[in-house]
């Protein structure tokens, strides 16, 4: 909003009582953003909207007032329905006083009524910055241009704790077990650097939490690709959230035009952390040429994530450039500007990069699964493909080695298969009423869906999406059903070291996507049983486990929690009913000795 609009908005807000506000809250979802801001349904907060180091390039982009969804029970902390800030420092044991929500002033303040600023009330500023950034991520994902539905968390509960000053360490974590985002501080004691002030770090960690909410089984460690996918979504979240900001795009336009392929400013993730901890410009960058083959050599989550972040950044650049192509300009009465191209690309990426998340399998995601999901999502939502995006996407993924670069289109790995016709029809409106109803739909068609008859699978998620495309047109209704079962796999052989004789699970399952007319639009599955794919998956799982055992990356969770070991293990094993479940540790970075942990020495 322009300043005069903001002033008008403030005047309108002052006239509203809380009763008015609550009444309007119930109707807010039918109103546009500008209106919601004017009627007290959006809370203004001053925060960093780009990583501090990048934002400081020419002081143009630094702190900015953003607005966030107001809720009737917004409270000190900040605390709202989905987040609770707990400013506890594990190293000093100090619990900082929380930012205070003053409903009358419609602002977070310190307890004595002073305004929060970074200079005068730094602790409360950090609290608000971390909360507001995380809340922006959640609102971004829940927006109809992205997933268009409320996002659950991956733990038992609905409120994710944010710890903005968790202690002294060069790292940040999303920790499902403690339901928290842990943001540490590091560097010179005279001038510490705070992960909670880094837009990219907070967005990245919240991205982990969002992905864990919509695909909780991705935390079960069954290949390096699944862990890499988690890191990719973290980085993609940070990049897209920054790109969505008008000032960031204006800066990019001024500096690079549509030549985003030069914009390391945007593609770089966690500049401040990269510079002060790892002595490089960014912690990671989506401006990279990492191929799938490179990643397979390394088999590291952080390195491997760059295959997809690099690919999606190339697609973003391609979309922006294509918007200004002579062919498209010729279609317009008035030529589009670079600013318009960037705006278009920012909006289009929701559909291109995030809506495909709903098309992923529920378990054991691979980089190729995402490529399929992206392409299939485009086929469903933009069947005409007038702008040739699918070719662009396919070329980029080919170049990254997700299919042979010399593929001539025959047997192309990147061609998503058409879904099967299900022999037993179920009305999707009925099936979407409950998980049990959805179960019947799947059970009746289990042969076609390659579910062994003896397997008692479970419908793990069922949702109905209300999504828009980049032109704010309503997309066809989409109902998604995910089902999962587990198969025991014995660790036989010396390659499993101390874990020999233990049992782990092969996760199997699939995702079905229906349109509102009960047509199956997409099916992706991770088979099990005695099927050739199931046998191959079992072999691959065992090879992966043997490798992480040899690399000493597997630790019993109780050995870290009991104090005999400290630190976040690369992969933590927990026993559930005597079966080992392997959980990926989600760290911001692995460091030089990735996978190693502190161990008891005596």
């Amino acid at each position, binding site marked *: 909003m322009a300043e005069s609009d903001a002033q008008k908005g403030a005047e309108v807000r002052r006239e509203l009582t809380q009763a008015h506000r609550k009444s309007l809250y119930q109707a807010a979802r039918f109103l546009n953003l500008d209106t919601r801001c004017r009627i007290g349904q959006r809370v203004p907060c001053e925060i960093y909207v780009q990583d501090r180091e990048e934002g400081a390039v020419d002081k143009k982009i630094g702190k900015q007032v953003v607005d966030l969804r107001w809720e009737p029970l917004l409270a000190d902390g900040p605390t709202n329905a989905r987040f609770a800030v707990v400013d506890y420092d594990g190293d000093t044991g100090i*619990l900082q006083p929380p930012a205070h929500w003053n409903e009358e002033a419609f602002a977070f303040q310190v307890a004595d009524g002073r305004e929060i600023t970074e200079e005068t009330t730094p602790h409360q500023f950090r609290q608000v910055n971390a909360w507001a950034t995380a809340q922006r991520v959640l609102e971004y994902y829940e927006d109809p241009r992205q997933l268009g539905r409320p996002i659950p968390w991956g733990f038992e509960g609905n409120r994710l704790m944010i710890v903005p000053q968790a202690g002294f360490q060069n790292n940040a974590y999303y920790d499902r077990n403690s339901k928290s985002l842990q943001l540490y501080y590091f560097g010179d004691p005279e001038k510490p650097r705070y992960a909670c002030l880094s837009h990219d770090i907070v967005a990245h960690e919240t991205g982990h939490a969002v992905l864990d909410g919509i695909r909780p089984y991705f935390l079960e460690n069954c290949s390096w690709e699944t862990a890499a996918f988690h890191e990719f979504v973290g980085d993609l979240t940070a990049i897209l959230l920054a790109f969505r900001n008008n000032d960031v795009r204006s800066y990019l336009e001024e500096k690079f035009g549509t030549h985003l392929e030069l914009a390391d400013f945007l593609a770089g993730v966690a500049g401040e952390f990269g510079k002060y901890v790892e002595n490089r410009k960014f912690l990671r960058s989506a401006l990279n040429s990492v191929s799938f083959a490179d990643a397979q050599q390394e088999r590291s989550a952080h390195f491997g994530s760059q295959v997809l972040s690099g690919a999606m950044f190339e697609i973003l650049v391609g979309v922006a450039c294509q918007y200004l192509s002579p062919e498209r300009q010729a279609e317009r009465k008035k030529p589009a500007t670079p600013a318009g191209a960037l705006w278009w690309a920012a909006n289009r990426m929701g559909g291109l990069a995030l809506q495909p998340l709903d098309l992923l399998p529920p378990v054991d995601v691979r980089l190729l699964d995402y490529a399929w999901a992206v392409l299939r999502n485009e086929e469903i939502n933009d069947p005409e493909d007038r702008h040739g995006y699918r070719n662009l996407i396919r070329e980029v993924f080919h170049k990254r080695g997700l299919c042979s670069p010399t593929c001539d289109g025959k047997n192309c790995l990147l061609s998503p298969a058409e879904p099967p016709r299900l022999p037993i029809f179920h009305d999707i409106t009925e099936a979407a009423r409950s998980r049990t109803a959805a179960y019947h739909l799947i059970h009746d068609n289990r042969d076609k869906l390659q579910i062994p008859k003896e397997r008692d699978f479970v419908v793990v998620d069922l949702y109905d999406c209300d999504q828009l495309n980049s032109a704010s047109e309503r997309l066809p209704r989409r109902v998604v059903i995910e089902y999962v079962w587990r198969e025991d796999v014995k660790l036989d052989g010396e390659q499993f070291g101390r874990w020999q004789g233990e049992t782990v699970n092969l996760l199997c399952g699939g995702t079905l996507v229906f349109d509102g007319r009960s047509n199956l639009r997409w099916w992706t599955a991770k088979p099990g049983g005695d099927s050739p794919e199931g046998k191959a998956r079992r072999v691959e799982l065992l090879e992966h486990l043997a490798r992480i055992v040899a*690399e000493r990356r597997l630790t019993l969770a109780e050995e870290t929690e009991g104090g005999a070991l400290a630190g976040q293990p690369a992969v933590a094993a927990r026993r559930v009913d005597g079966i080992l479940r392997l959980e990926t540790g989600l760290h911001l970075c692995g460091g030089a000795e990735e996978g190693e942990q502190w161990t*008891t020495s005596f």
Partner: protein
Amino acid sequence: MDDKLLVRLYNVGLGDCIYLRVPDRGGAKHLLIDCGNKFGAEEHLRVALADLRTHLPEVPGDAGLRRLDLLVATHAHEDHVRGFNLGDFAGIRIEHLWMSTAMNPDHPQAEKAKALHAFALGTLERLQSSSRAGLAEWATAMLGLSKGEGLDALTVGLKPVRRLYVHAETPEDDLKLFDDPAIRLSVLAPMNDIDRFYLGRETALAFEGFQAMRDARLNEAAERGLAPQRDADPVPPNVSREDFDRLRRSLNDQALAFVFKEGELVNNTSVVLLLEWRGRRLLFTGDAEVKTAFQGSFQKDRGNGSWNVMWHRFKETSLSQPVDFLKVGHHGSHNATPWTGKASAGGAHPINEILDRLLPPQAAAEARAERYAVVSTERSGYPTIPDPSLMMELGSRVSNGREYEEPAGVHSVPARRPQPPRTDLETIEGHRVPWIDVELAEKAAGGIP
């Protein structure tokens, strides 16, 4: 029998207590390397010391007094020094006492290491009252270890004829012990500059930074009237006590990282001894650790593992040939033998070159060269002590491998896979043996395989 060299590895539980009888020109010399244990009963140590006494010669003219030619305290951990406190050395005259240079209270090149040690002790004392599950018990156990019960006796109680803080640069003449000049006992580790080689500038700076940061934040909080949260204090009103407690337990306590680092550092100050006796080479490693992440190399100004430094310094000299006997380091832990099952780009991990040199891979068991290794160990809840993969690897390289029926468990070595003899598994008629002996005869010149 007296013409053979005897290594007797006492079964003291989790700890080291190693007696050596070394035939020399003027009669055998008697050495003891370490005397300590953790978790184990004092009784184990007393049995060992009672047996030791029977081997030691009487001091002429002083009835009842026995002579021990050399006592070595490799490093200041309870499982290596606890037994010195028991008073059982009262009737023993110690001719030479060698202690790690790091144990010298006035050592100027271990100032930062000492500061880290003091910090670790303070942290462990604080953690003894932690509510975090299992942490208080762990801290108490670690505190005993780090305080190194037995150190008082070494520094004050025992009255050796000659006391020497040794390191890899100690002049050879100072280490002369044997009448036969061909018998040599060399110190391969630690280096004298503890802070530089094993703590490293990076860790020292990180530690200083951490302390400064913590102090600054505590002071800043105190100025605003804030004190560290205690267990009984109210929890933040926006979360439940259960959630807050779980959160607190999950937070990384950076102080703990420095406690671990300090434990690693003390291990790396272990005295490592190479005994060259009539064609035989015997290596006693204390708990010297290896830094696998450094790819087998030494890195200047960084916190190296002792093996990394030794290899850098001695690979063309003292460590250029295989050994006949290896006392497996750190009770068989994964972090103290230069070998890993972890692959590296281009094949075997470079750290494995060290073990390949000292205990080369062997062919079929019947054709093996005569090489020995032993492990003083006990399973006490530490997942990699001893490390099953390492035990199997060593078992394939020595000629005295043993097959045990280890109780089933995730750390067990499978049956019928040879391992080096282990103090915790060696039994006679179902009873644990009080010691494991290895006897070595003189080897003909040029007989090193």
